[in-house]
């Protein structure tokens, strides 16, 4: 106890006025450290994890401005400024990649953002608990299927000759369609398989918001003779609006982060005209052609755009709807 007080006065005397805004800060730190030293030890491994696998890569990303080679390492390699960025922007492939990336993500947003809301609103109208539970259980299930399995199923069901869909088309007297080998169909394949997989999962948040609606609102609406549709528009929609806005911010903020793993699996030389996105290109240039600096520059460009989008949407939402992530 005696030492604690001594230390406290000492800290106050030596450090307090200019640097530390709150005089109690370092005392609190010392007290917390002494009291929770075991927790500080405990937190070291996870912090190391974040430093090693999240922050060191951020620092490593300087190779975007260098001519990285394995022998000289990240810091030994020569600085080249924005050479690789210029190379990327001047490359004709740049516009193709940007167009494909934005098209896929905007299309995806337009489909997979409203559909879960509609599903939740419809489910909320259902009175039979069994039917409601079954629909929820079934629509939620595909979320647990891996992307590899999803793409495998797509491959088998939509195979040009043997797939059940093509057989059905032929049975109806229509020509079979090569779904997987077409640049025109690829975006729809990507988006609607995503809707199939993610809608039930995404609806959970909205269902929870709807569960929290005050029942007296519905009572009042009924007394006023409101129809079901009017109740949805005047009670249900406003009550899921906050959740919907947050999810919209998150979705727009990750526009550039298309579901790379799925695009990569669905991609083949035939549909490449619309399936080559920034991240698949990074993978090819970087790991397959070992052009590390160029690939890192492209990746950095992608991350930066993403961050800017997120901050912009967040600010807009804050100003207009008073909702924001941070």
């Amino acid at each position, binding site marked *: 106890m005696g030492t604690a007080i001594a230390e406290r006065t000492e800290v106050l005397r030596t450090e307090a006025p200019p640097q530390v805004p709150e005089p109690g800060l370092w005392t609190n730190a010392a007290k917390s450290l002494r009291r929770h030293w075991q927790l500080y030890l405990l937190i070291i491994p996870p912090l190391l994890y974040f430093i090693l696998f999240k922050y060191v890569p951020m620092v490593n990303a300087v190779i975007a401005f260098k001519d990285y080679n394995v022998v000289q390492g990240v810091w030994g390699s020569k600085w080249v400024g924005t050479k690789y960025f210029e190379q990327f922007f001047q490359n004709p492939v740049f516009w193709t990649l940007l167009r494909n990336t934005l098209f896929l993500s905007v299309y995806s947003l337009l489909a997979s953002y409203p559909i879960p809301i509609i599903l939740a609103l419809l489910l909320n109208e259902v009175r039979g608990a069994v039917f409601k539970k079954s629909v*929820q259980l079934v629509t939620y299930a595909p979320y647990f299927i891996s992307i590899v399995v999803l793409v495998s199923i797509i491959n088998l069901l939509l195979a040009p000759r043997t797939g*059940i869909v093509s057989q059905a088309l032929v049975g109806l007297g229509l020509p079979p369609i090569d779904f997987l080998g077409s640049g025109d169909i690829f975006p729809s394949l990507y988006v609607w398989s995503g809707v199939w997989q993610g809608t039930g999962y995404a609806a959970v948040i909205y269902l929870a918001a709807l569960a929290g609606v005050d029942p007296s609102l519905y009572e009042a609406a009924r007394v006023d003779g409101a129809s079901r549709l009017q109740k949805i528009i005047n009670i249900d929609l406003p009550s899921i609006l906050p959740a919907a806005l947050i999810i919209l911010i998150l979705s727009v903020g990750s526009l550039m982060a298309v579901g790379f793993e799925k695009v990569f699996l669905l991609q083949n030389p035939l549909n490449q005209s619309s399936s080559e996105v920034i991240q698949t290109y*990074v993978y090819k240039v970087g790991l397959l052609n070992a052009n590390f600096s160029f690939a890192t520059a492209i990746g950095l460009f992608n991350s930066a755009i993403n961050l800017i989008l997120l901050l912009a949407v967040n600010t807009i939402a804050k100003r207009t709807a008073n909702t924001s992530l941070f």
Partner: protein
Amino acid sequence: MAVITAKTNTRIRESGGDRIFLIAVYTLLTLVLLAVLYPLIYVLSSSLSSPLAVSSGLVKLWPVDVTLRGYQVALENPQIVTGYVNSLFYSVAGALISLTLTIAIAYPLSRKSFFGRNVIMLFILITMLFSGGLIPTYLVVKDLGMLNTRWAILIPQAIAVWQVIIARTFFQLSIPDELEEAAQLDGSSDLRFLWSVVLPLSKPIIAVLLLMYAVGQWNSYFDALLYLRNPDLFPLQIVLRNLVILNTVSSGSMDPTLLAQRQEMADLLKYSLIVIASLPVLILYPFVQRFFVQGTLIGSVKG
């Protein structure tokens, strides 16, 4: 999953318009149900049908000439068996490692008296907003000598920030600071308190984290694609990708009879393999779904 029937189960006379509206709702939802269910049933039925029925497209909804041949062949394939064992290992070991690390950071950050908690929280939240990218991360894994080892699957993605948020929120809500202060007055150390009081009280969140991490590991393929070259280390998802999506057969290590068998069974094998690869998760699913929903909702309390 909280089902909200209370507000609507009072018998009320529906107006004509409302009745039409309800019919439309039920019809739409039934269509949705069928659209989601059909591909799953089709794959399952195909996997249980005879090779001939599958390759000649006789399967429409239910299995034709029911047989387990597809599964038999799949389980005789050394690649698939190795992949299965590897995936089990990655899921169990990965979930345990991830759980330990997540609790090790989420619990301290949930204590009000833990100095620096906000700064550290910010430190990890930033990683959600910005990342160094694919190549720089690859270089770290390479420099650590993890390439082509099991560690590359278990460690680089070990902590998900989202799960830290979920766990921290849970601890904040269910372990009051007063309880911890009282324990301290009784002379209990932080670690002892964590071990003998907090963890026993946190079984639901431990279940959520374990399941989320295990399912994540089971379903992931991309890290394996990036970091692994040795086929003996491949998880099942990579085997599945090679056999079904890339349609390649590595014939080197396979005996000729098996190869011939595969030729005629190729399609059937694909269906069986898909079922095998999703079975563990889908069997658990009805039981764990509740936990996942809870987890998602806890996380969104403070998103």
